[in-house]
C-alpha cells in the first residue's frame, strides 16, 4: 500500500467517537453572522445594505480580487448591520449580521434529493459557475477553487487528485460524506475533469476507512478514468503535496504549486460542493462539520449553515462538558484552540474537538537533545530544530534561505519532539515574518 515518501508521523486516529454518525442538520439560528473573510486572499466586499431582504443563496458579498470568493446568504431574512465581530481567536473581522426570518430559498436552487448526472455545460461555463458559487477548498486552506481550475499559461493539468484521506485524527466529516454522498462526489469529479480537460482522476483514501474505500471503488468501477488509491496511514497525507506524492509519485518542487507537476488536488467536500453548485445551482452556504471529543454527549457529523454560532452547534452536540480544557477549531494536529465559541460557522471550520482538561495541557519544554527526530518527521524535508532556533533569535533572512516558506504547519515536528519543544510555535512566527518580508520586497519592485 502506498504512502508519501518523506517524513510523517502516525498519531492515534481517535475517529471512533464520531465515525459512521449520520450527517444531521443543525437548526437555523435566530441571527446569522456571516464573516467576510472565509478564504485565503482578499476579503469579500459586501453588496447588501442595512435593511435589505435576503433569501437563501442570494449573493451578499462579492469577491474582492482574483484570489477571493463570493459569499452567499445561508439564511433568509433582513440585513441588520455590517459590523466587526471577533473571530475564534479574538481578532476582529468584518461581518454581515442577518436577522433570520423563515427559510425562503431562491427559486433556481434545486432542493430535491434526486441525483442529476447529466452535465451539458462547457468547461468555461463550469468554472464560471464554480466561481459564482463561491467555492473554496474545504479541506482547510480555503483556497478559491476556480483559481485552481485555471492553470497559468504554459502549465497543463494531467491528473485530478481527490483528497478523501482525512488524515487529521478525530475528524470524520469527509468519511461520512463519502459514504452518504459518494455518487454525487463521483459526478462532481467528472464535472471537474471536464472543466480541466483531463481524463484521469485518482481518489486517495486512507485504509482506516475500509467501507469508504469499498464504496468509492464500486462507484469508480462504473466511471471512466477514475480510480481509488487505498493509502497507508500516515499524517499529513492530506497535505496536497504529500497526497500527490502518495497517489501519483510526483514531487512538487519547493515553492511551486501542484500544477507544476500536472496535478490539481481537491477535497471530497469541495467536490460535493462543486456538484451542488453546477447541477443544483446551490452556492456554498453550508458544510459538514465534525463535533467530537472523549466526553462530548452526541459526537457526530453536522450539516451546518454558515453564520450559525459554533456554540449553537455545540448545544446540538450535547453542550460543552464541564471537564473541557480546550476547544480546538479543526483537528488536533493543525487546529488551533479557540477562545471564543460565539464565532459563527464558516467555510474554514471543519470541526470542533473538545479535549478534557487532562489532555489539553502542554508538557514543559526541555532542552533540545539533538536527536534529529523532527528532521526525519518533517514531510517537507526541513530542519525544524534549526528553524525554531533561528526564529527565536529573529534571524529572518537565514530562515528564508532554509526554506521556511515550504513549511505546511502540519506540526509533525512538535508532535514527535521528545523534549516537547514548541518548534511549530516559533516556525509559524518566522513564516509570518518572512512571508511579510517577501511580499514587501515584491511590492518594492
Amino acid at each position: 500500500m502506498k504512502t508519501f515518501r518523506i517524513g510523517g508521523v502516525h498519531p492515534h486516529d481517535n475517529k471512533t467517537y464520531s465515525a459512521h454518525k449520520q450527517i444531521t442538520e443543525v437548526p437555523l439560528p435566530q441571527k446569522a453572522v456571516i464573516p467576510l473573510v472565509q478564504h485565503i486572499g482578499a476579503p469579500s466586499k459586501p453588496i447588501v445594505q442595512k435593511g435589505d431582504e435576503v433569501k437563501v443563496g442570494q449573493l451578499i458579498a462579492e469577491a474582492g480580487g482574483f484570489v477571493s470568493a463570493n459569499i452567499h446568504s445561508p439564511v433568509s431574512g433582513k440585513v441588520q448591520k455590517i459590523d466587526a465581530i471577533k473571530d475564534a481567536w479574538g481578532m476582529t473581522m468584518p461581518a454581515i449580521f442577518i436577522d433570520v426570518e423563515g427559510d425562503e430559498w431562491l427559486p433556481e436552487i434545486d432542493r430535491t434529493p434526486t441525483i442529476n448526472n447529466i452535465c451539458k455545460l462547457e468547461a468555461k461555463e463550469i468554472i464560471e459557475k464554480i466561481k459564482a458559487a463561491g467555492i473554496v477548498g474545504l479541506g482547510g486552506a480555503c483556497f478559491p477553487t476556480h483559481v485552481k481550475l485555471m492553470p497559468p499559461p504554459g502549465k497543463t493539468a494531467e491528473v485530478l487528485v481527490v483528497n478523501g484521506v482525512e488524515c487529521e485524527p478525530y475528524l470524520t466529516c469527509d468519511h461520512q460524506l463519502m459514504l452518504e454522498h459518494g455518487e454525487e462526489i463521483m459526478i462532481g469529479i467528472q464535472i471537474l475533469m471536464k472543466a480541466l480537460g483531463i481524463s484521469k482522476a485518482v481518489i486517495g483514501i486512507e485504509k482506516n476507512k475500509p467501507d469508504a474505500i469499498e464504496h468509492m471503488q464500486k462507484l469508480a468501477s462504473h466511471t471512466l478514468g477514475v480510480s481509488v488509491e487505498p493509502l497507508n496511514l500516515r499524517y499529513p497525507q492530506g497535505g496536497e503535496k504529500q497526497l500527490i506524492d502518495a497517489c501519483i509519485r510526483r514531487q512538487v518542487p519547493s515553492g511551486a504549486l501542484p500544477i507544476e507537476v500536472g496535478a490539481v488536488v481537491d477535497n471530497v467536500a469541495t467536490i460535493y460542493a462543486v456538484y451542488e453548485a453546477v447541477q443544483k445551482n446551490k452556492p456554498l452556504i453550508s458544510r459538514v462539520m465534525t463535533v467530537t471529543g472523549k466526553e462530548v454527549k452526541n459526537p457526530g457529523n453536522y450539516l451546518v449553515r454558515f453564520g450559525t454560532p459554533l456554540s449553537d452547534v455545540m448545544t446540538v452536540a450535547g453542550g460543552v462538558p464541564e471537564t473541557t480544557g480546550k476547544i480546538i477549531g479543526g483537528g488536533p494536529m493543525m487546529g488551533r484552540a479557540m477562545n471564543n465559541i460565539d464565532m459563527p460557522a464558516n467555510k474554514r471550520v471543519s470541526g470542533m474537538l473538545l479535549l478534557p482538561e487532562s489532555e489539553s495541557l502542554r508538557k514543559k519544554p526541555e532542552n533540545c537533545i539533538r536527536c534529529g527526530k523532527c528532521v526525519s518527521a518533517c514531510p517537507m524535508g526541513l530542519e525544524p530544530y534549526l528553524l525554531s532556533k533561528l526564529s527565536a533569535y529573529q534571524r529572518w533572512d537565514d530562515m528564508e534561505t532554509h526554506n521556511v516558506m515550504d513549511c505546511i504547519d502540519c506540526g509533525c515536528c512538535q508532535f514527535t519532539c521528545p523534549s516537547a519543544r514548541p518548534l511549530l510555535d516559533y516556525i509559524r512566527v518566522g513564516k509570518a515574518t518572512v512571508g511579510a518580508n517577501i511580499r514587501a520586497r515584491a511590492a518594492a519592485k
Partner: protein
Amino acid sequence: MNIIWISLTVLGCTALLAAVLLYVIAQKFKVEEDPRIDLVQEVLPGANCGGCGFAGCRALAEACCKADTLDGLLCPVGGQETMKKVGDILGLAPAASDPMVAVVRCNGTCEARPRTSRYDGTQSCRVVNALYVGETGCAFGCLGCGDCVKACQFGAININPQTGLPEVDEEKCTSCGACVKACPRHIIELRKKGPKSRRIWVDCVNKDKGAVARKNCLNACIGCGKCQKECQFEAITVENNVAYIDFNKCRMCRKCVSACPTGAIHELNFPPKPAPKPVEAAPKAEAPKQESQKAEAVTKVESNVEPAKKEEPKQ
C-alpha cells in the same frame, strides 16, 4: 654544552629574522586609520546595543569622525554628556537633543482586564501575538510574556507581578529602543523624558470602538475625544478610537488627565496636588482613586527624580 649554544643561536637568529620580517610587513601594509576613532570609542559607553542605528559603538565612532557635523548622530545610552565629550575630541558642536525614555502604553492590569482564556504555550509575546488575541479580550494590549524584558540589555524593564505589566526603571533606561522593536503589539514608545522627569501620556493603544474596548479593559481609552477638546495646545489627536499626546506640543497643563473618564491618561512625577493650578473640569467619581494611585506612583519614584533642569518643552 655546545648543543645549547647552537640551539640558542639558531632560535635567536630565527626570532630576529621573524621580527624584522614582521616589522617590514607591518610597515608596508599599515592601515591608515583616523586616530580619533579610538579616542571617540573610549568615550562611548561600549554597550554595543545598536540604539544609535549603527552596528555598534565603533561603527558610531567611525561615523562621528567622518561626519562634518554631529547632527543626527546620537548615542542614546550616553546621551547629551557623551556626545559633548565626543564633540570636544572632534572639535564639533553636539546636536541638541532631549533625553528620551521608554514608556509602556498599556494599563490593563490584572484587575482591570479580565482573563478570558488560559495560555500554556511558549512564553513569548511574539508567539502569542501570532496565535491569538491573548489571555484577555484586548487585542492591542500587553501580552505580559516579557519579550521587552528579554530584549533590554540594561535590566531597565521588568514585569510587575501584581499588575502583570512591564515597568520601566527610568534611571537604568538608556532609550536604546530595543524594547520598542521587541514588542509585537507596538505598545512601548520612546517619549521625551520631560522636565524633572515629568511626563503625560495616553496609557492605552486599543483601537476598538469605545464600548468594546471598555468591555475588555476598564482602563482603556474609549476614544471619546474629551481630552482633545480640553487641550489648548492641539497636542492631542484621536485617531482610530484612541487618543495620542504629541510630546513635542504638550505643555504639561494636565487638564486632559482629569478630563479622561476612564483614567487612561497617565501622569508621572508630578507633585501630588497641584495647589496653584485649579483644575477646570469637575473632578470625576474616579478622581480620588486616581489621586491615591498617583501619590503612590510619586512616592515610588521620588528618589529617582533628577536634579531640576531649566528646560521647557518646545512648541
